[in-house]
């Protein structure tokens, strides 16, 4: 490896400069406030966790984990998501707390990027988890809260795609007959490879009716009419049950007055084995990646020996700020007091006065800055308190 230049950073790591920081903070504050109003309690978890527990339970692929060793030789990971750590807490420290639990987090997560830039390896995620409630109202609340959060952040053009893993699994199983074939076809959906899916269907020894049913699955995307179409091709009671859950979920969202931003996509498979029921993703026009996602993960708590239903969402702050547009304007600095030794006391009093009025004041010793004109040009108001009284300057 060649010698690194001083300014280099690992792939996917980003600095946040003041302008972007300000925008991020606005978005973060708006969402935290909204989430708190819905009664979700914030928690924090460690940045480092054991690879064997959190690393294995998380939805993130092993090769995307940042790993290191502790002094005893245990493999540690930089947490790749927040859902698994919260599941660990819910299953241990909070196992006796009254259910349902409503928790929220706002923390950086880490996912190693082997490819080029343009994708962050560390990014801030804001999300909620609702643990111990299996009802449709819980799924509806999570989707509604994600949408409310997006609105509060100032985003207008967005869409939510809602799917159901329980439906996909039940439907594939009733047509294909065994789990390993189901896994193959679910993988095609996960890889978004519809061509491969159709070719694999053609190669199966199935009746032409069943082949058609499978291919019809790929077209199940759109408004509520999709649920009718799905109802026509699914026969098993599990599949029908999943659909009736979706119907009820749409009712819940209609009650929230949110159904116009929802599309139904029964091919949405975001992870190979993590989610069990409702899944959803949020998109913004003009941004090529989802802003966030979530769903029901009823099996995850069982990995921590505490089986119970759970659902949640996570929003990516980096993508959300990107979707909201470039930083709106450069920061306009408020007041600058340029002072010299003789008038320090006066400058301090002035500054205190301004700060009490909630204004932002920079105090700058005139001997500490090289180019006073260029420096002071960054402020909307500059006050010179230089030289002995009455001589130097005054307000500009």
């Amino acid at each position, binding site marked *: 490896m060649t010698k690194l230049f001083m300014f280099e950073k690992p792939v996917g790591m980003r600095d946040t400069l003041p302008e972007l920081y300000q925008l991020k903070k606005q978005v973060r504050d708006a969402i935290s406030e909204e989430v708190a109003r819905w009664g979700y309690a914030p928690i924090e978890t460690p940045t480092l966790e054991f690879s064997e527990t959190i690393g294995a339970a998380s939805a993130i692929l092993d090769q995307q984990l940042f790993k290191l060793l502790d002094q005893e030789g245990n493999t540690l990971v930089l947490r790749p998501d927040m859902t698994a750590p919260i599941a660990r807490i819910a299953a241990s420290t909070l196992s006796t707390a009254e259910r349902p639990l409503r928790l929220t987090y706002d923390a950086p997560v880490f996912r190693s990027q082997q490819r080029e830039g343009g994708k962050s390896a560390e990014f801030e995620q804001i999300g909620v988890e609702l643990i111990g409630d299996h009802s449709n109202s819980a799924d509806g609340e999570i989707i509604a809260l994600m949408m409310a959060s997006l609105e509060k952040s100032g985003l207008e053009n967005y869409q939510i795609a809602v799917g159901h893993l329980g439906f996909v699994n039940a439907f594939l199983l009733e047509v294909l007959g065994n789990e390993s074939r189901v896994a193959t076809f679910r993988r095609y959906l996960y890889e*978004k490879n*519809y061509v491969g899916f159709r070719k694999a269907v053609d190669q199966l020894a199935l009746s032409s009716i069943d082949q058609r049913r499978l*291919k019809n699955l790929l077209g199940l995307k759109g408004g509520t009419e999709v649920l009718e179409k799905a109802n026509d091709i699914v026969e098993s009671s599990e599949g029908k049950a999943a659909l009736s859950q979706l119907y009820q979920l749409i009712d819940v969202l209609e009650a929230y007055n949110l159904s116009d931003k929802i599309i139904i996509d029964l091919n949405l498979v975001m992870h190979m084995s993590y989610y069990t029921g409702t899944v959803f993703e949020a*998109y913004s*026009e003009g941004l*090529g990646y989802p802003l966030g996602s979530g769903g029901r993960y009823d099996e995850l708590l069982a990995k921590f020996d505490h089986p119970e239903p759970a659902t949640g969402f996570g929003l990516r702050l980096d993508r959300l700020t990107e979707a909201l547009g470039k930083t709106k304007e450069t920061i306009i600095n408020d007041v600058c007091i340029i002072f010299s030794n003789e008038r320090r006391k006066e400058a301090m009093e002035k500054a205190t006065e301004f700060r009490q009025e909630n204004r932002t004041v920079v105090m700058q010793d005139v001997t500490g800055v090289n180019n006073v004109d260029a420096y002071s040009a960054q402020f909307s108001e500059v006050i010179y308190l230089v030289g002995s009284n009455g001589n130097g300057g005054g307000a500009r």
Partner: protein
Amino acid sequence: MTETTNRRELLTVAMPKGRIFDEAVALLRKANYPLPPEFDESRKLIIESPEAGMRFILAKPMDVPTYVEHGVADVGVAGKDVLIEEKRDVYEVLDLKISECYMAVAALPTYNPKADIAPKIATKYPNLASSYFREQGEQVEIIKLNGSIELAPIIGLADRIVDIVSTGRTLKENGLVEVETMMPITSRFIVNPVSYRTKSVQIDDMVERISAIIEGGEEV
């Protein structure tokens, strides 16, 4: 409607320059997309066609999935070879069944696998080649080249090459023979995952019109 929103509603289509281009353009014309006649000759990299509701960007074939993955193009036409090599997060929606060819391993006729101590493979597709040989249980060293792969065995840079073969003429003219057929390749219609939802009206219509043209008419 303002100028800018109008612009945004154009569907951005990433087209591969070179081999696949003519066939892809012909396919779109057959699907009744009014593409401007300047299309065929132009050296422009971006061509707008407001009548068709589209903006075309002309990219290197290998880069088409990259533009689509990042969402700067909504849809694109890319060879399966490129999709396997690049492994981008895009929807592979249709097999366009154009630019048919296949991936193959080729070598000089004198090539003797048993005499091969440290097998070297030259290719434009290092990821595809290395996963192929790994699946075969064969340990090889991959040398990445950017073109004229046939040179490599002739002048002794590698023992075998992995490349796409359409007629086999290039191999023949350079005195190489095919030793293994790997997989068939055709061009695919790919879609950005976000555009697939946010611009679904335009994209679904496009998929329908194109699939009606594709021989045999795959249902969607």
